[in-house]
C-alpha cells in the first residue's frame, strides 16, 4: 500500500512517516500543493493524506484539482480547524474522511484502514469472529470463551465485537464511543474504562489468558500473545 502524505509541518510529517512506515505502508511526502499535485498525478497511490492548511493552496482546492484530473484515490483530510466546514462534510459523503488535529495515531490508522477497505475489497461480513479461544457469533449474539458461554449485556457484546473486529489494533476511548455508542462526546471521566473493566471481568477469566489489554494514554487492544 502506497500513501501520499501532504503536510507542510515537518514535525507532523516526520511522525506520520515513522508511524505509517511502522504500520507497513510505503510513503511519499510533499510539503506544498504544487509538489503534491505532481506526485499525485503519477497515480500510483492507494490513498492521500492531505492537510487543509497548505502554504500555497487550500487542501480542498488541491483535492478538487486531483479529482478534476480524473484521480479517484480516496483522501483522508487533516484539519486544524475545530468545526468542520460544509465542504469537508461534502467530501466525507463522497467516500473521503477527515480527522481534526490533534488526533490519536490509533484513530488515524483505523480511518486509513477503513478508507482503503472501502476503495478496494468489500467489507468482510463474516458472522463469526475469533481471537484465541474467544468466539463471537454475530447472528445469535453469543460469545464463548473456550466452552464457556459468556453472559454479556447487548452493550457489552457490541463493545466486545468492536474490540474483536480490531484484534491486535489499539482503539481509543473516542473511537469506542463513536463506534459502539455512536456518539461523538468528549469526556473527562472514566465512563469507557468502567465498561471495559466490567467486560474484562466477564471475558478474561482467572483461568485463561488475558485478552483485553490497556495501553496507557492511548486506549485498549484485544490481542493474545
Amino acid at each position: 500500500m502506497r500513501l501520499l502524505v501532504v503536510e507542510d509541518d515537518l514535525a507532523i510529517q516526520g511522525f506520520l512517516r515513522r508511524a505509517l512506515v511502522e504500520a507497513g505502508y510505503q510513503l511519499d511526502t510533499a510539503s506544498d500543493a504544487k509538489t503534491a499535485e505532481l506526485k499525485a498525478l503519477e497515480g500510483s497511490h492507494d490513498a492521500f493524506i492531505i492537510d487543509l492548511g497548505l502554504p500555497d493552496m487550500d487542501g480542498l482546492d488541491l483535492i478538487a484539482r486531483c479529482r478534476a484530473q480524473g484521480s479517484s484515490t480516496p483522501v483522508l483530510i487533516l484539519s486544524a480547524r475545530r468545526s468542520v466546514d460544509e465542504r469537508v462534510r461534502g467530501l466525507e459523503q463522497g467516500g473521503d474522511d477527515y480527522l481534526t488535529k490533534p488526533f490519536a495515531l490509533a484513530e488515524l490508522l483505523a480511518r486509513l484502514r477503513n478508507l482503503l477497505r472501502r476503495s478496494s475489497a468489500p467489507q468482510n461480513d463474516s458472522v463469526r469472529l475469533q481471537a484465541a479461544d474467544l468466539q463471537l457469533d454475530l447472528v445469535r449474539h453469543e460469545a464463548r470463551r473456550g466452552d464457556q458461554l459468556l453472559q454479556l449485556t447487548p452493550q457489552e457484546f457490541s463493545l466486545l465485537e468492536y474490540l474483536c473486529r480490531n484484534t491486535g489494533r489499539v482503539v481509543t476511548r473516542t473511537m469506542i464511543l463513536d463506534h459502539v455508542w455512536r456518539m461523538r462526546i468528549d469526556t473527562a471521566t472514566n465512563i469507557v474504562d468502567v465498561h471495559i473493566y466490567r467486560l474484562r471481568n466477564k471475558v478474561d477469566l482467572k483461568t485463561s489468558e488475558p485478552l483485553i489489554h490497556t495501553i496507557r494514554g492511548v486506549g485498549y487492544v484485544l490481542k493474545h500473545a
Partner: protein
Amino acid sequence: MRRVLRTSAAWRLSIWTTLAFALGTGLAFSIVYFLVARGIQERSDAWLRGEARVLAQVSADTPRDRLYRRVVTEVVELATREVPDERNEQGQSLNAVFFLEQDPNNSDGPLWVGPADEGPFLSAIQQAKPVAGAPQPIKVDSWPTTFQVVALYENGRTIYLGLSNRGAQHLLGKLTRRFLMVWGGTVLMGFLISYLSARRTLFRVERITETVARIGTEDLCERLPAQAKSDEISRLSETFNRMLDRIQSSVNQLRCVTDAVAHDLKSPITSIRGTLESALCNEPKEMWCDSIGEAIEGLDRLLHVLNTTLDVAEAQAGALRMDRSTVDLSDVVRKLVDLYQPAMAERHHEVLVDLENHAAVDADPGLLNRVVSNLLENELTHLPAGHRIAIRLHSYNGSTKLVIEDDGPGFPPDVSNRAFERFVKGKHSPGHGLGLAFVGAVVHAHGGAVSISDRPTGGAVITVSLPTSILQPA
C-alpha cells in the same frame, strides 16, 4: 470660524428652520394682502357705480336752467363727503374725487367738479373712453396714482365719476411696510432662538462625544454624567453607559477567562513536562511506558479543556454551527444513562430514571448528546460517592423539561447564581467550570433555558427546558 459654522449641525438646522418660517409667513401675508386689496377695490367700485347712478338721476331730474350747475355741483360735493376724508402726513387729502358731465346740448361746456386743474383729466378720459357702467383705472398726467373711473351714458350726455386709488394704495403700502418690519424682526428672532436652542442641545451631544472619545482612548471605567432632563439625549447617554457597562464586564470576564485558561493549561503542562523529564533523567528505558502514557493522558485532558473552552466561547457568541432535526430527547437521555450507569455504580450512586416517552425537541443531535452527557459528567465529577440521582423528563405546555436532581451537598453558595458562566466552579471542585457553561450556552442557542437550585432537603437540582417540537422525531 466659517468652517466651524459650516460643520455645525446647529447652524444648518437654524438656517433651514428660519428659511421655512420666513417663506411660510411671507406666503400667509401675500394671501392677506391680496384679499385686502380686492376687498378695497370692490368697495370703491360699488360706491362709484351707486353714486354715478344717483348723480345721473339728479342730472336727469334737474331742469336745465341757471341753477342747474349749482344744484349738480352741490349734490356732487355732498356725495364726495361720503368718502371718508383720509389725509396723508402732509395734510393732503388722499380721496380725490372728480365728477364730469359732458352734454353736447349744453352750451356752457362740460360740467366739472373736482381738483382745480381739469385739463389732464379731460384728456385722459378722452383717451381711455371707459365702457359704460364698469369702473376701470385711468392714469392721469401729473397725478401719482391712477383714478378708478366709471362712465354712464344717458340721453346723449355722458357722466364720469372718478375716485383716486391713492387711499387704497396708501393703506396697502402701510400694511406692507408694517408687515415687513414685524416679519424681519420675527424671522431674526426665530433664527436666534432656533440657533441657540439647537446649539444648546447639540452642545450636550458634543460633550458626550468628547467623553466617549476619552473613554475610548483612556479609561474604560469612566461614564457619561447623568443628564438633568429626561429626553433623547439623556437616553443616548444612558444607552452609552449601559453599553460601556457591558463592554467593561466583557473585558473583565475576558481577563478572568484568560487567567483561568492560563491556569488550567499551565498546571497540566507543568505536570506533563515534569513526568517526561523525570522519566528521561531517572527511569530506565523499560519503565518509560507508564510516564509516556501519563503524559498522553495529561495532554488529552489539556485538549479537552481547550476544546470545551472554545466550544463555550463559540456557543456564547452565537456562532455554533447547528444542524437541527427533530430528536426524541428521551432516547438521548436513555442512551447516555446506559453509558454512564456503570461509572455511576462504581461511585455507588443510585440512578433513578423517570422518562416520558417521545419527548420531541428540535435540536442538533450531536450538541444535545453533549448537553446531556455534560450534565451526567457534572454529577459524576462533583457528587461525593454514594448518593441518589433522579433523572426526570416530561413535556408540559409546549416545553420539555429535563430535571436532574441529587441528594448531595448541593451547589456551593459562591457558585449557584453564576454556575453557567465559564470557569465558575466551586473552590474544591475538580472540574474546570466549563461543563455547565457549555450546557447553558447550547440550551440558550436552542431557545431553551437552564436553571439550578437547591432542594429544600439538600441536594442540587438542574432543570433544562427546551421548546417541545410540533413534529414527531423521524
